[in-house]
């Protein structure tokens, strides 16, 4: 449970085994280690789903269309200044990194919701893509909650304004032109794959740094 769940499986591995606070408990605090373990599991799972969804879509709809050439610098979260390599990531203070993660997660609430709606409306919507989209949306919400708990423990008291990037790609998803619409989906899935990988990587960095004192 948990240890071998990295084969890209669709099931969320063994989150239920982690300790939880009984409902209504006020002073219950799940340990930071458990919170991070849970968060890492979720982020890893979300990225696996995103990766599979993108590959499926690419194989089915995007062959020979050269979408990749156009999906450059087209993610709505690129305005968020995220570290681009290990050194940059290690230089950021963990509180800032946590906030960054929160921002990225929040930025995806809206697009994920619409993604589900629009994929459903697609003609001959493949079930594999739709089911994954639904799953990602749900898990993303849970990860956000977990991250807010972690922030509450690591950096209590300070609550920043909710900053996130606004997504404006909805009209493109609803375009009549098939090519344009397909590209909009492609781009969204491409950005989702990338951002979920970013979140997963940041969280693992933070976990090793905070919980294991950089000695994973």
């Amino acid at each position: 449970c948990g240890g071998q769940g990295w084969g890209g499986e669709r099931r969320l591995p063994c989150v239920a085994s982690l300790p939880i606070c009984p409902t209504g408990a006020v002073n219950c605090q799940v340990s930071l280690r458990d919170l991070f373990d849970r968060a890492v599991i979720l982020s890893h799972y979300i990225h696996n789903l995103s990766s599979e969804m993108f590959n499926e879509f690419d194989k089915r709809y995007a062959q020979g269309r050269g979408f990749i050439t156009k999906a450059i610098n087209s993610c709505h979260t690129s305005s968020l200044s995220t570290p681009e390599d290990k050194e940059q990531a290690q230089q950021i203070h963990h509180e800032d990194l946590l906030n960054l993660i929160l921002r990225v997660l929040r930025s995806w609430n809206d697009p994920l919701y619409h993604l589900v709606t629009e994929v459903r409306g697609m003609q001959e919507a493949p079930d594999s893509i739709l089911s994954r989209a639904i799953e990602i949306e749900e898990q993303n919400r849970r990860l956000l909650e977990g991250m807010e708990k972690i922030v509450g423990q690591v950096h209590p008291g300070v609550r920043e304004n909710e900053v996130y990037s606004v997504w404006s790609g909805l009209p493109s998803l609803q375009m009549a032109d098939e090519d344009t619409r397909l590209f909009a989906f492609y781009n969204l899935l491409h950005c989702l794959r990338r951002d979920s990988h970013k979140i997963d990587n940041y969280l693992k960095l933070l976990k090793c740094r905070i919980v294991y004192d950089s000695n994973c």
Partner: protein
Amino acid sequence: MTPGGRIFASMCAWMLLSQAIQPCYIFLHSSPPVLSFTLSKEQGSVANTQNKVVHVPGQTRLTSQKLPGAFSFSECLIHFLWEEKGAKMKESVVSTVVFILLLFLNTSLLNGQSPPGKPEIFKCRSPEKETFTCWWKPGEDGGLPTNYTLTYRKEGETTTHECPDYITNGPNSCHFNKKHTSIWTMYIITINATNQMGSSSSDPRYVDVTYIVEPDPPVNLTLELKQPEDKKPYLWMKWYPPTLVDVRSGWLTLQYEIRLKPKKATEWETHFAGQQTQFKILSLYPGQKYLVQVRCKPDHGFWSEWSPESSIQIPNDVTMKDTIVWIFVAVLSAVICLIMVAAVALKGHSMVTCILPPVPGPKIKGFDTHLLEKGKSEELLSALGCQDFPPTSDCEDLLVEFLEVDDSEDQQLMPAHSKEHPGRDTKPAPLDPDSDSGRGSCDSPSLLSKKCEEARVSPSTFHTPEGIEKPENPPAKVTRTRDPQSTRLEGKIPYFPADGSKSSTWPLPQPPSQHSPRSSYHSIAEVCKLAMGTGGASATPLDKTDTHALRSPKTTEPGGEEEAAERREVESFCSKTDQGTAWLLPQEKSPFISVKPLDYVEIHKVNRDGALSLLPKQKENSNQAEKPCAPETSKEYAKVSRVMDDNILVLVRDPQAQSLAAFEEPDKEAPPSLPQNPTGEDLAAFASAPSGCGLQLGNTTEYRKRTLLENARECG
């Protein structure tokens, strides 16, 4: 030209056709549309199979396959095949345009120089998600030295950069170090090939380092065979992540997989090890050499190559000591087997007969198979011997029912009786002397003695309060079932064979006994019990004070008191007699009561009225046969003359009379007391006189026989 059809063919890229790489596009415009075409050298011959026709609106674009090298391009026939309303027609058009272009091509080929071919990036890889390298494959160089450059552009930037490092990873590679590597960023990479004749560029390749991570194999794989006490040994292996990968900070998270196999095996046994860097293998074949490899995979990346093989030798289970022991055992077994085989070979026959004795064939005494073969039945039967049936010879004595009195026998009977109490197994012969049905043939002496012993062994029930045993029918006697509870008595006197268990049909082994098997012995005590019991008198033993009273009847007795006197006599007699003297018991079924040993008395005489006169005897060893004292009177009845019908013993006077041994079968009557004689005959309680004097009786008198005389004394 076909009716209504027009073909306009123009050639494109004939230049490239000579390279045999690029497809040749032939643009046609024809009506009706062309279905397929073939390129052939000469008219009439078919060079290619049909080629694919791609319909693009407005034009018919035909793509041909690579033409075989034999083409000289001097002429090319393009056969067009189209279908018009069910009719297939062929039209071959020799394109003049083609001809011109081909001429141009040929001149180029004759020179052998051309611009470089298009390179191709075939692999980009990052070993640790911090740097990456791309490798390309150059195209044809066109015979001229060609220069290759790699240029790239990053996502979000507009400037184009050149590869920073062409050397680190070999020729035709470009290595991007940490400074030049950005994660989550798209790189657009292009290779440019340039030579004198021209240049060519590869297709741009879009690379995101995030998704091209493939680490090096794990390092320092060590194997160790651990052997804990009392447990089976196991293989313990340890390795380290590849040196470049940063696992400690969490930048990459690795999972491992190991595989192992015995050196000679073909299939690997693979195990997933998760994120741990050690592993245990428990099931190992001893005596084998194992090879082990390990590899790793980052989260969201590719599996590394397998590490170099490590090997380890598993020692054998069996120690030298065990081997020696087993060799010894094997040699010993072989020797034993050889010995057995030799023995069988040498003495096979005798061994076989020893182990498997030959089954005796059936033999009938006197049966002559030869006679049977001859078929003479008469002779056969006579040869059989015509034995009488039932067989009589040796067993006559057993079947005859008569009483015989024998001195020696009595003496022998005495000890036999004294030692034992009457066994439970009382089986006298049946009443009917002639009924010998069921009686077996002669018994072997050994069997008789065996029975005798058994009787001695089980003395009991003498005093059993239960019913008196009744001798069973002859058939049951053979089985000698001891059944103290058997209550077949019907007023019969208890029956106690001298040797206990012995069946009454069999004679006693010790004496040359002529006794009827129906004889029974009793001790005086039993007799007395019965005697006393019959009259309803208490079974209390009388003391010796009654001796005097006993004497009294010596003289005359009033008749009226006979009965009582006799009873008294009996009682007193009983009180004095030793155990072991025989009494005639009243025939009744009464439990024996333990009576104190009584003295022997001597029957003095029998009165006219049939009363017994008893003489006290000196207490002596009753087992011994004393020399007979001189009979004092000639009136002693000491000899049995005959046996009467209903088992009445007839005694006669005999100066040299010997003591009697009276055997009789238990009567069915149960006269209360000895002196009583409903038939008017005298009854006498016989007692063995220690002094040897026998019974002194008067005239021949018939006595009812009820008991066995157990001790005989020789008078005289």
